[in-house]
């Protein structure tokens, strides 16, 4: 009996935190000390600062053509200049804005749709689960990038379309996770009790069950943000992103990689590193969040 302390301390007016809350708080404290979490957070914060205030501290206008194209990285141009003579460093810094605007929104929408779909699959079950389960599996078997590329080129290249397409691509994946969590809850007695007093199905799903599965949903959200960055960069690299002269990282890589063979590595390497660092940072944070919630 680990939870009797409260009862034993009868007469106290303020409710002391339960063992579980204490354990969770303790876990957060341990997570905050993890080097992985700190590194991830620092990198993420750097990019957020770049996205918010980048335009005010970059050395050059990211769209302005300087006198030399393909200047090597050095003291004047930290990351060199690109094929039209624009400063790569300024473009990488400002380019953070696009991906940080689109990726979290796409991930959030994907998780939102996924939660709703997974909720119905897991709770209503039966034929709905059977039918949507097959559809979800069919969707999951398709190559994400290819479908995304197809959809964006068909529907038009714009941020809302990219967000919508990525969200829809993520929906089945999130739905599977949520479905499993709901199925573990739906046979618990508190749900039976809710039915016995005549609660409606939406009430049971979203008021009774949802608060108990926040843990896996939050973990899924952080993981999805990482994937969204990756997918969006890939899409723009393949030409489904914002058109030139946008400094979006995937677009920059795409504009620069033809010059790789000619030895101009910097126009590709720096935006590629930017993508990698952001994805890794978000994943480091996601891992830590998972560790904290699952402990």
């Amino acid at each position, binding site marked *: 009996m680990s939870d009797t302390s409260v009862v034993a301390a009868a007469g106290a007016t303020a409710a002391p935190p339960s063992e579980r809350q204490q354990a969770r708080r303790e876990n957060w404290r341990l997570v905050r000390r993890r080097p992985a979490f700190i590194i991830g957070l620092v990198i993420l914060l750097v990019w957020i600062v770049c996205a918010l205030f980048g335009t005010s501290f970059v050395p050059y206008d990211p769209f302005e053509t300087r006198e030399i194209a393909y200047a090597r990285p050095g003291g004047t141009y930290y990351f060199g200049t690109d094929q039209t003579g624009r400063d790569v460093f300024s473009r990488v810094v400002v380019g953070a804005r696009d991906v940080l605007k689109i990726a979290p929104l796409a991930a959030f929408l994907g998780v939102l749709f996924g939660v709703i779909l997974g909720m119905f699959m897991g709770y209503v079950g039966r034929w709905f689960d059977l039918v949507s389960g097959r559809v979800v599996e069919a969707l999951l078997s398709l190559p994400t990038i290819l479908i995304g590329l197809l959809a964006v080129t068909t529907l038009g290249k714009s941020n809302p379309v990219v967000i919508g397409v990525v969200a829809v691509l993520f929906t089945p994946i999130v739905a599977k996770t949520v479905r499993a969590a709901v199925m573990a809850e739906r046979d618990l007695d508190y749900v039976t*009790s809710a039915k016995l007093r005549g609660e409606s199905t939406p009430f049971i799903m979203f008021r009774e069950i949802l*608060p108990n599965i926040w843990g896996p949903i939050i973990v899924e959200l952080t993981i999805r943000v990482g994937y969204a960055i990756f997918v969006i960069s890939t899409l723009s690299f393949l030409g489904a992103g914002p058109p030139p002269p946008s400094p979006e990282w995937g677009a920059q890589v795409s504009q620069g990689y033809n010059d790789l063979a000619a030895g101009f590595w910097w126009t590709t390497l720096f935006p590629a590193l930017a993508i990698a660092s952001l994805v890794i940072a978000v994943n480091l944070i996601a891992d830590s969040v998972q560790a904290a919630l699952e402990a």
Partner: protein
Amino acid sequence: MNTSVDLAALSVENLEVAYNVRGVDRAVLRGVSFSIAPGEAYGLVGESGCGKSTTAYAALRYLPRNGKITGGRVMLGNRDITAMSDDSLQEFRASEASMVYQDPAQAMNPSLRVGRQLIECFTLLGQSNEAARTSAVEALHRVRIADPESVLDRYPFQLSGGMQQRVVIAMALACNPKLLVLDEPTTGLDATVEAEVLDLVRTLRQESDAAVLLIAHNLGIIRSLCDRVGVMYAGRIVEEGPSHQVFDDPQHPYTVGLLRSLPRRGVRKTEQALATIPGTLPLIGTVLPTCVFVDRCPLADTTCQTVEPPVVPVGADGTRFTRCHYPHRISELAAVVPDIPIGVLAASPDNPQVLELSHVSKTFRQRGRAIPALVDIDLRLAEGETLGIVGESGSGKSTLAKTMLGVEVADAGGTLQRDGNAMAGATSARTSDDKRAMQMVFQNPDSALNRSWTVRRILLRAVAKLTGVTGSVANDRVELLAAQLRLTPRHLDLKPSQLSGGLKQRVAIARAFAGDPRIVVCDEPTSALDVSVQAAILNLLADLQADKRTSYVFITHDVAVVRYLADRIAVMYLGRIQEIGPTDDVFKGPHHPYTEALLSAVPSVDGEATKRIRLDGEIPSPSNPPSGCVFHPRCPRAIPGVCEVSEPPLAEVSPGHSMRCHIPIDELRRLQSETY
């Protein structure tokens, strides 16, 4: 085998164990000492959290990763287990000690055949594959498995719980251990299966000279199996002695409280309330410099709070002791009546019927096969009455409850009536009055309460939904309900995880009573609780019933509890009511042969009954019930040529008492008096 008789097989000396919880070592065992002679069985009893299991695991130095032995030692024969190297510890566990766990399904690898797992036990001891197979067959014979070869070829999930536990015991005995630790070996099993396993352990004890350490929360099991018993509280043995002496004449206030909170010797709610032990067990790691029981002891005074109690021998032969300052004042405890008087409603035949089921059946369908879970149930429940429903798992008790409540919908053809009016089968199709009238208390309070809601929200929602009132009126009602269930206002703003098991169950009961129900279905409401908490909950249920004239359908496997609380009892087997009648008639007999077996299977804390009926085999599958009387293949009194041919009707044998048996009642009376 042990050559020295003087040397104890197991000797635990002043053992201290601590668990490291978030960086702090918290004491769990506070100096436990006891010893077990070869061939002796020693039992440890106490409420959950008192350190029984920790002691058992520490005896094999098998603690969880965060546990460590902080003092004392454990001697097996003349070897100190606490000082052993890891290699010799492994060697010792393989060849000299064995453990049987609570859940046999988890003790076996589900993906390997029984044979492979059992044979491995012997090859590990150095036998060749051929010899190991022969040994495995012998081992299964030893645990009374009739057809060892076929059991060896099966997977664990293809065996029933009782068979699984036999296999686990066979594995435990493979090395001819000097020490056998049994941790709640029958807790998950049905009463009739439990009786078989206990019989087996009893027989095996005579065949080997292993020392047995038995952990059980069921005092009856300890009494029936153990020579000596240690009563544990907060990591210390507070009383020890021969089991029959300790249980018949307890000498420590805790033992007295524990025994008194049990419904015993056929006592009924109309005769007396159950005693409870006020307060709760101290948390692990709490500093308890003097008597560990001081906070809850009715005899405690300043001496108890300042001076550690001595070990006081009881009797002259040196086999008993108690750890108390005032063993001579134990007799004063007899005068202490339960602090909360309970009102009790006596059943009367004049009370109106609130619930009536006629010809209710429930058939599940699985892969096109019909599985009849309930067959033609006729039941009546009067106002203010408690109907106990007993039977082994798979008998249809829970399906019956769910069908009454509309969670499962009865097959077409049966009718449900509440207060004389027909009621829809499904909850969702019922009127709000019908929903309000029938509520449920669940077995496991952890899953019955939404863990992310506060107690206040849980109760407010139930009040609002069932009675339609909202706002401050609803809030007043919640506070009134809480007060009736002896919850303080402070509890209302806590979440379930912050409450103890007993308090959670009170919240669940308060929720069931939110709309002043006519009928409350209680599904094993106390089986997850400790006995002292169980007593408080049973008192409360009886009290609420007297106050509100609520009817209870009380499902349980605990015959002592049902005898205490129920006015009438229905005995179910394979979806059918085999016997139904007033509690005294059902218990005193003549009873249905199945009831007879069920009652005699229960080990009593007051000593074994003289008559013993044991059932062979397992409950048949409901999808393929036996012909004629469904009980005939297991019935010790079956009449050949009659019972397997036709199913007997549920016929009245005395006013209000019916059973389903071909044997005439007078014949049953004669047969059942013979075995006394």
